[in-house]
């Protein structure tokens, strides 16, 4: 019989089994590294099952590989897993980033390895669970679970004496809004008696979640704020810079963006379409500001990790802009860009980690002239920078182009203005990335490289980087391979969301509280 009905369970919990195995293994030599690599590679192999057995022909918006088992009778919690065009590639992405993370930590993590790899695998379980869960309660369990390993990873494996502060900050920023999320979820459950996402989405489509517009509005904010902090969206990014500059490379690679962006797409948009429509202009403006803000701040940083943090803020803002335009191009491009940003960002952080391994600093003023000594590392930096900059033929260009063109097509007020502002991001990203390359790689040898003899990429590092580079090219040239699934989610979602506002005025008259009074 086919393993399709249980494949998601296998994928989600395989890393957990791996974590248990690692906990039992002795911490000798490279045993843990090899074991972690094996576990993550097998997980990745398992996730590849999904695109190969995904039925592209089936009707749009339906879930596949579903597994729905009643778990707790009251409250009605189901063990309900399933994926669609939105989550499928995110599962695969989570699958491929994990072995790369192990490869890049090979030498960088040399003490308390067992703790590190166990936490790392638990983090993966949480992310897989987030992407696969269709029951809101189950989802929330994974969402909270994702918080803990990351906090500990930052607190213990951070690079400087500020790591505890960064960890606390991360935890508070993530935990407090999660409480809002929980309250809002429970309210939704109280209203509908179900945690099941497809059911909730159907109810929302009939405007049957709750007659109380004001409460619905507040609940939608509970969801959105929790997700926005976690993305993060400007100006809620207070935790990002510290967390990124402290966290070890493998953790940073999966730190920001994708789970929260996914959650907005999956939960906020399905359960609160009208409310999302109402808040979209605000989100679009915040995203456009975030693009410029992140770009400008990245331009004045001397610390490479801080530069990367602000760059991440800017890149994530592109995605936020795209999904809130409620156009096909914006949603498709935004979702595609989640994959691209994760890959390019991960590669960028990997490279920064490699620099740090060699020269023990992230201060770019101490670098210079490295291109003479480490040509391969320099070449990789250039390629990754070009992806982040959005060079055509590489992956991010497709995503960014669709996002911005979607923004130009959107029906919200001042969309020309916001598109123009957001498009300046392409100038800024070129400016800060090329400035970084010049400082680190060009010119005369800097103070650090003069004293320390670095070494160019070794085989393991090549192995970690080349798949990403190959994906940059493939995803930049053959986007429909990925986009087909994404479009099956994006196109109907765009239609649904763009028309969501029409229902509100008609309903508002029938409701006890006019929607306008909810502000």
């Amino acid at each position, binding site marked *: 019989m086919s393993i399709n009905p249980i494949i998601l369970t296998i994928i989600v919990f395989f890393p957990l089994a791996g974590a248990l195995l690692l906990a039992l293994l002795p911490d000798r030599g490279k045993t843990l590294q090899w074991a972690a690599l094996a576990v993550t590679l097998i997980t990745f192999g398992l996730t590849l099952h999904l695109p190969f057995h995904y039925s592209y022909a089936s009707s749009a918006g339906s879930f596949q590989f579903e597994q729905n088992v009643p778990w707790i009778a009251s409250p009605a919690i189901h063990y309900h897993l399933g994926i669609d065009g939105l989550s499928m590639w995110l599962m695969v992405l989570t699958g491929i980033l994990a072995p790369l993370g192990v490869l890049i930590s090979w030498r960088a993590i040399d003490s308390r390895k067992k703790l590190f790899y166990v936490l790392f695998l638990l983090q993966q379980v949480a992310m897989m669970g987030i992407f696969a869960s269709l029951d809101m309660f189950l989802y929330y369990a994974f969402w909270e679970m994702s918080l803990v390993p990351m906090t500990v990873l930052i607190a213990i494996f951070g690079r400087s004496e500020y790591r505890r502060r960064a960890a606390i900050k991360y935890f508070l920023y993530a935990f407090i809004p999660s409480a809002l999320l929980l309250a809002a979820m429970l309210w939704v459950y109280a209203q509908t008696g179900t945690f099941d996402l497809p059911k909730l989405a159907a109810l929302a489509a009939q405007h049957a979640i709750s007659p109380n517009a004001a409460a619905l509005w507040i609940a939608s904010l509970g969801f959105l704020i929790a997700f926005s902090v976690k993305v993060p969206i400007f100006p809620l990014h207070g935790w990002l810079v510290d967390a990124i500059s402290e966290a070890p490379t493998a953790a940073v690679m999966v730190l920001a963006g994708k789970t929260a962006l996914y959650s907005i797409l999956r939960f906020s948009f399905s359960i609160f379409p009208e409310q999302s429509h109402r808040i979209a202009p605000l989100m679009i403006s915040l995203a456009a500001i975030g693009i410029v803000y992140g770009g400008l701040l990245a331009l004045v940083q001397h610390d490479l990790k801080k530069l990367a943090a602000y760059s991440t803020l800017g890149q994530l803002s592109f995605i936020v802009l795209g999904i809130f335009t409620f156009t096909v191009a914006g949603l498709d491009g935004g979702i595609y860009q989640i994959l691209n940003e994760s890959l390019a960002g991960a590669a960028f952080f990997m490279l920064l980690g490699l620099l740090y391994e060699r020269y023990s600093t992230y201060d770019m003023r101490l670098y210079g002239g490295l291109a003479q000594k480490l040509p391969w590392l320099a070449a990789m930096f250039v390629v990754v920078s070009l992806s982040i900059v959005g060079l055509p033929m590489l992956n991010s260009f497709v995503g960014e182009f669709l996002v911005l063109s979607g923004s*130009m097509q959107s029906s919200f007020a001042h969309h020309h203005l916001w598109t123009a502002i957001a498009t300046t991001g392409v100038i800024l990203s070129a400016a800060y990335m090329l400035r970084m390359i010049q400082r680190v790689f060009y010119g005369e040898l800097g103070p650090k490289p003069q004293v320390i003899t670095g070494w160019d990429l070794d085989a393991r590092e090549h192995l970690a980087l080349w798949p990403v580079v190959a994906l940059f090219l493939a995803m930049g040239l053959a986007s429909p391979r990925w986009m087909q699934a994404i479009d099956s989610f994006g196109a109907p979602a765009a239609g649904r969301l763009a028309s969501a506002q029409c229902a509100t005025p008609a309903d508002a008259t029938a409701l006890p509280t006019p929607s306008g009074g909810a502000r």
Partner: protein
Amino acid sequence: MNPMPTSYLWLIPLLPFVGFLINGTLGRRLPRSVVSGIALLFTALPAGIVAWLWMTMCAVHAPNTIESVVRPFGVDWIDISGFHVDFAFTVDHLTLIMLAVVTGVGFIIHIYSVGYMAHEEGYWRFFAYMNLFMFFMSVLVLAANFLLLFVGWEGVGLASYLLIGFYFKKDSAADAGKKAFIVNRIGDFGFLLAMFLLIVHFGSLSFKEVFATLAQNPQWQLQGAHFLPTIALLLLLGAAGKSAQIPLYIWLPDAMEGPTPVSALIHAATMVTAGVYMVARCHALFDSSPLALTVVALMGAATAIFAASIGMVQHDIKRVLAYSTISQLGYMFLACGVGAYAAGIFHLLTHAFFKALLFLAAGSVIHALSGEQDMRRMGGLREKIPVTFWTMTAGVFAIAGIPPFAGFFSKDEILFRTFTSPNPLHILLWLVGLLTAGMTSFYMFRLWFKTFFGEPRVKRHVLEEDGAPIHASSTTTLTLEAEPDQDKATHAHGVHESPWVMLLPLVVLALLSVVGGWVGIPAALFGSNHIEHFLDPVFAGAPASEAAATTGHGLELSLAFVSVLVALAGFYIAYVFYYEKPGTAGALAERNRSAYNLVKNKYWVDELYSTFLITPLLMFTRVVLELMVDHGIVNGSGAAAGATTRGLAWIERKQISGNIRSYAGWLAIGAAAVIAVMIFGNVMKGHL
């Protein structure tokens, strides 16, 4: 008739890409002869295919366009609901000319580079980047839609960035590469917005579909739809970046930091003409908006005269040529702006020949002097490097507009079309163009005299008073032979003529600079203006072609006479200033010191941008955004939120200790809270 070339179109870009991949990955380990062999082979093959294309398309009954869609991975490039872009290539007569320039001149410059770069470190890197450039440039001219054109557009920018910064150990080179890329990005910002608007209003990015939709909706133009001029002007911003026009020209002079063959190929013959090509390609869009056309013409004319004025006082031989390129590109835009697209493309063609020649010859001079670029330290080279001298002479005469050299016909065509154009500003534009022609002739003969005539001044530079140009009589003249005490390696082995591998390309380009203009001899001079008829299928219906047709030959001849006179005047002034009475120019500059300094310092434009744009922006970012917003508000509010829980701070300090058990405890407490709320929630639900 012959469908064969269709299926081979994609080879034109792909072959140089293969060359790039081989040299880029393995080149470090290969011997130099293999590296250059690969690079030459993968540029010669596309040139061969292009020659074959020419034969096919010039045959009787040949189609006006051929098209070919490539699906390299079995799928199109972008395909979502309601929007679709594929890798579509197309060839029409305009593309043919561009392809000939790109692959032909490109190949010639590759040959030259074998000699020029022979002693450079990173030989393989140079040829890998050059092939990469050829790949992107071919994509640019072959593209059948805006987005694919944009691939080439950005890609040539990348190749240009890499090649300008080829000597990346030099800060000035790395800076120049970065500047070029970022300034081009400002133009690309416009290009991107134009594409977004095209998608909104036309629903497609394919040239064919966009122009067909435009032709089907003449009411847009009649009703004055705002989006048409907006799109055209945004595209123009892109063109201004790529083709170094006001206000984005500032990157091109700095781009001279790159090796000279790069300047010849990318920053003279091909890449910088991409903006002109794009405007010509999208002429239907520009024709639909008189406002946009006028802006094109004004921008071109202003850039032409502005850059020419700076070119008159530069001392660096390559910078003179750089400003001259900017100025000549302005000419091409002027032609487009008055609707004379064919004239613009004609000038693009002849300019590619003579400007590539001038750069390569300048490179040969620099090579002969072992790296010297300052014309104040040249002079009297005529007999030392005769082949370089004679070929460069052909280039100088061509650009100065002396008949029957190539530049004369194309420049004259532009001036004539400008004069007869329906644009209300046509007389002003013509006068600017004419004056620019005079200035061009002056600074090119200035370069010619200073480099090849007079007393040799090849000697360590004697610093003289800033401002006044150095001239023969004020400098100690010395022999050209190296002196033992000279520490500069530049003069180690005296002046020498370049090897044949560099001279042969010069000779070929010199021939083309003489005869290249003969394809466009106007009817007034008993020719038949082949090139314009050749381009008719592409530019049919452009306004200027009709206006010009009604004007008599008498006017054309008298205008040509005037422009030849102006060119000769430029020659005469240069002759007097730099040959007959070499002190004159210095004295003149002395008398008009403030004006001279203004021009000498390039009107302080770089400084203006820096002071009023970049510095304030960075200051704003550091002070307002970083200190006030990010550290103050964003982190401050986070800190404030933290402060509200400061009562619990001791718990945090204890709990966030990296202790797994304490986290487990927290999680348990959280879970308990959740379950409590669940039960509570259920109770609540009972009440609701």
